[in-house]
């Protein structure tokens, strides 16, 4: 067994809205082992990004515990948290809005180093910036360019370099490639993968792209309306999806073979409102296998087979 780096217990984030409490993330628990990647998938608005941000306390969670190397970071004071931010970083979805348009590449990458006082000597900082630039594959001549002069892939590389600048152990990748062209997506994914290998990073990889997650993640967690509905190793999940939602999700992956039989499981209805949800299975309204028990009580996440967790009263075989 490898070492657990991050453990999340009952992470909950509610937003208060005029119509009631919006359950963005509701009692999510999982662990990530050192050097591994946890992929988090789900449709828009299911709370994937909020989970990532709540773990980093960019949005304060309503309840729950997050243990990073055994320490509960949600209980940390400001100063301790400041130290902690060196260990945990985030790569943002949109490289167009996550970089300050008034700063040059050099200034952007320098900021985390200077701010955390990792290096103080001017020459050394400069060297480190150049080193980071070459690590993520940015040419030296871009040292003084502004982000708006660069394409999406290069901008995202700046974002990655910034995240790496503080030598973190854990990085939340919040849909790092979904804003990029397909050709550039592959480059950035390969870069992330190489960095993981070289630097021993641990990722939480948030995406809605199932092909990407299969390629990228060791474990996959599927989220639906703020709940974790299924979690299993990638191979296992793709081979034996047990939750009806996961099955429908997987059947939606386009297959390049046009002769292959297509049996798409189409979901009916709309995603139900996350505001004050009733105490029943969140997926019940759209589930083809829904029965009385599903509307009577909410299923809890349980281990069906080793390392395969499902939150469903009637997991499919």
């Amino acid at each position, binding site marked *: 067994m490898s070492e657990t780096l991050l453990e999340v217990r009952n992470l909950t984030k509610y937003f208060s809205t005029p119509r009631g409490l919006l359950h963005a993330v509701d009692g999510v628990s999982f662990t990530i082992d050192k050097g591994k990647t946890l992929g988090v998938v789900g449709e828009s608005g299911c709370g994937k990004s909020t989970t990532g941000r709540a773990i980093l306390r960019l949005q304060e969670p309503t309840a729950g515990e997050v243990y990073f190397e055994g320490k509960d970071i949600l209980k940390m004071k400001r100063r301790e948290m400041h130290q902690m931010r060196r260990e945990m*970083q985030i790569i943002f979805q949109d490289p167009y809005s996550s970089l*300050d348009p008034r700063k040059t590449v050099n200034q952007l990458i320098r900021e985390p180093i200077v701010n955390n006082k990792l290096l103080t000597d001017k020459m050394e900082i400069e060297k480190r910036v150049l080193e980071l630039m070459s690590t993520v594959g940015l040419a030296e001549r871009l040292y003084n360019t502004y982000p708006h002069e660069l394409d999406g892939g290069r901008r995202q590389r700046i974002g990655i370099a910034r995240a790496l600048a503080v030598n973190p152990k854990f990085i939340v990748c919040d849909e790092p490639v979904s804003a990029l062209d397909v050709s550039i997506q592959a480059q950035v994914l390969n870069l992330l993968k190489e960095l993981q290998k070289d630097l021993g990073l641990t990722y939480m990889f948030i995406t809605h792209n199932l092909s990407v997650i299969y390629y990228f993640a060791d474990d996959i967690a599927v989220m639906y309306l703020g709940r974790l509905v299924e979690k299993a190793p990638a191979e296992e999940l793709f081979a034996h999806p047990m939750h009806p939602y996961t099955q429908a999700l997987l059947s939606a992956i386009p297959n390049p073979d046009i002769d292959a039989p297509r049996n798409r499981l189409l979901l009916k209805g709309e995603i139900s409102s996350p505001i004050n949800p009733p105490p029943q299975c969140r997926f019940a309204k759209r589930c083809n296998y829904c029965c009385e028990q599903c509307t009577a009580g909410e299923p809890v996440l349980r281990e069906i087979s080793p390392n395969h967790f499902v939150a469903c009263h009637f997991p499919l075989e």
Partner: protein
Amino acid sequence: MLFKKSKKIDDGRSIYVKKSRMQEIWHQFQKNKGAVVGLIMLIIIIGIAIVSGFVFDYKEDICARHAATRLIKPCLEHPFGTDQMGRSVLARVLYGTRYSLLIGIVVVGVSTGIGTMLGAIAGYYGGKIETVIMRIVEIFMMIPNILLGIIFVAAFGISLTNLMLALGLSTVPHFARTARSSVMTVRGNEYVEAAKAMGVSDFKIIFTHVLPNALSAILVQATTRVASAIISAATFSFIGLGVPSPTPEWGAMLSDARQNMRDFPHLVIFPGLAIMVTVLAINLVGDGLRDALDPKLKR
């Protein structure tokens, strides 16, 4: 070229050294012809303000009354004519630059400084802090400028300093509102959150990320307010709460001339022109500066 290749790092690689920030802003600024004209005008105006202090004797040239030379129209001996006290309008207009420029700069400095800070804090933090700050600001906004000025001057006495403070404080609400709204749009950007994730303090985020990106609206507001500050100062002088009479402040000159305005238009034309030219120069420079500070507008 944005950068030149020069400095060597110890391992022999040459790296691209950026022009300093000031050089870069100047590089952009001087591309804008209007702004350069404005800057030249402004330099001349500031030059006049400084030099006039040495050239003219305040008591003799500016304030002393000469019954013999009352109300002469512009001629060779008196290029701008003379006023009802027989004083040279040219000398007074030139000397008045000192007062008007000082008023414009101090008033806008006070209101931009206080207003931007209040607005930035309100816009950045939101919630209760915002409600408290903005309600207070709105209360001040409800009081007419003149009334606020009268209250202030009545409480603290008539003087140039009090006038400038009164005018500055009465324009704080405008700056607070402008700053708040532009800070709110900037705050929503992911790079603010990115800075938080890197552990940058709120204070630093406001100064290094939020304000520079919210600057253009504030800068435009500031340059137009210089003009209105000079004019407001004139208003206050007119009702006797501003600069006391012999002082050659442009607004005060205008109000002094009101009785003879029909027959001797030169008494208002020249101070008026002086206000106009100054305001124009400041606006041109302000526009140029706004564009030069925005890297996205580079051609």
